């Protein structure tokens, strides 16, 4: 149960959500994604209630599960979700999203046959289909190998550079060291801190804890279409419109 959780996040920020198991991180992210309804309080994304169609159109949710049906191919899944997001050309959107994560080779493969890393790549493509402004990540690197973690880290850095707001929950905090702009700590459903890290690592892709044998990060968004449409520049000094406003 969450109580008295209130915070805001601006465009182009990556906030880390901290807390022990059961602290309420997943619950908070699921509420923000619209998968759970808060019993009380208010959550808005870019001024719209989180359960509204407007908020869902600009929110992406990446979990440790792909949310894709294992029997279908990656392309079939992405086309399906593109239709659910009312995108005018589902196949073109799916191809574009796969290109953004360098996952074109996954298109014809069934999700159930993919490795965990490939599934996460396909899942990230699903999140980027509708060009969200807010990306919620719930344990996105659980069960991934170090190379894939490095790719994910590079990808998130690029998305943040393009102006997306990212809220990330991960027990592998070291994997995102130097990348986050602030953190929110939850304890038994209450928000303890909401401090910014002032890490000074923003801008460009910060090198991750990748093994030396890892190739250049293959994930990442290319082109302006992949990022957010958030108009604000990054950083707290010059914040764009606050995608997430408040929750109490």
């Amino acid at each position, binding site marked *: 149960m969450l109580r008295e959780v209130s915070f805001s996040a601006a465009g182009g920020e990556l906030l880390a959500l901290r807390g022990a198991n059961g602290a309420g991180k997943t619950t908070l992210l699921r509420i923000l994604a619209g998968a759970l309804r808060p019993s009380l309080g208010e959550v808005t994304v870019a001024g719209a209630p989180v359960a509204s169609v407007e908020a869902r159109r600009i929110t992406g*949710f990446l979990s440790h599960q792909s949310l*894709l*049906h294992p029997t279908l191919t990656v392309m079939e899944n992405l086309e399906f979700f593109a239709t*659910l997001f*009312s995108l005018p050309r589902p196949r073109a959107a799916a191809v574009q999203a796969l290109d953004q994560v360098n996952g074109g080779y996954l298109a014809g493969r069934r999700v159930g046959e993919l490795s965990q890393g490939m*599934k996460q790549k396909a899942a990230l493509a699903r999140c980027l289909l509708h060009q969200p402004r807010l990306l919620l990540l719930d344990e996105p690197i659980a069960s991934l190998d170090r190379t894939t973690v490095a790719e994910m880290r590079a990808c998130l850095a690029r998305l943040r550079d393009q102006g997306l707001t990212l809220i990330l929950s991960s027990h592998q905090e070291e994997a995102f060291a130097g990348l986050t702009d602030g953190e929110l700590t939850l304890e038994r459903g209450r928000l303890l801190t909401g401090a910014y890290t002032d890490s000074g690592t923003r801008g460009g892709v910060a090198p991750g804890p990748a093994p030396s044998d890892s190739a250049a990060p293959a994930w990442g968004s290319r082109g302006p279409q992949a990022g957010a449409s958030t108009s604000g520049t990054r950083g707290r000094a010059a914040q764009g419109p606050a995608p997430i406003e408040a929750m109490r």
Partner: protein
Amino acid sequence: MNDWRVFLAVLRRDLRIELRTREAMLAMGFYALLVIVIFSFAFNADAALTARAGGGLLWVAFLFAALVALDRAFLRESAEASLTGLQTTPASPAAIVGGKFASSFLLILALEAVLLPLFAVLFNAPPATRWWGVIATMLLGTWALAANGTYFSAMSVHARQRGLLLPLLLLPVSIPAILAMVQATQVYLSGAGVANYWLKLLVGYDIIFTLLGLALAEVVLAVE
């Protein structure tokens, strides 16, 4: 327009999944076949018996086969938590639930289309049988089961005793429809006339529960 696109997308996707896995079709087909064959052995069915009790025997097979299909309607979304994927899209919940209903309806109907001729042969269906009436009852009855069943399948998908909960929720609510299906089928199998009253009851039932299911789609999709 968008709702229709979502409806068709969900319908196409569910049928595609079913065609690839054949999970529901195999389970429900096997079950329904078993019931019909065992009943035919047990009752040594002749035309007189079928005219008297065929409606009930037929719908026992169809009803339990439908329960299998309906149980899978939302269960197939538990793989890779794909139900959460549906919940986080801006698509209309009514269109999603409507697509699920349509796929279940078509699956059950396809099975019934195969089993009905088998039933006619094994149970020596009376020559006076009005098959158009039986088929009309089958369509309306299956619609009723699929409309209610899809709704309760969504509600019970997260429950531990899901397999038990679905029939517990579905069958009591479906009693008026089941009564009408059995009675109407009986009338047409015996060639005793036209079951207008029962068909009208089924039509009314279908309209009410389809609209109710669509109106409450947002609530059932949000059930955790």
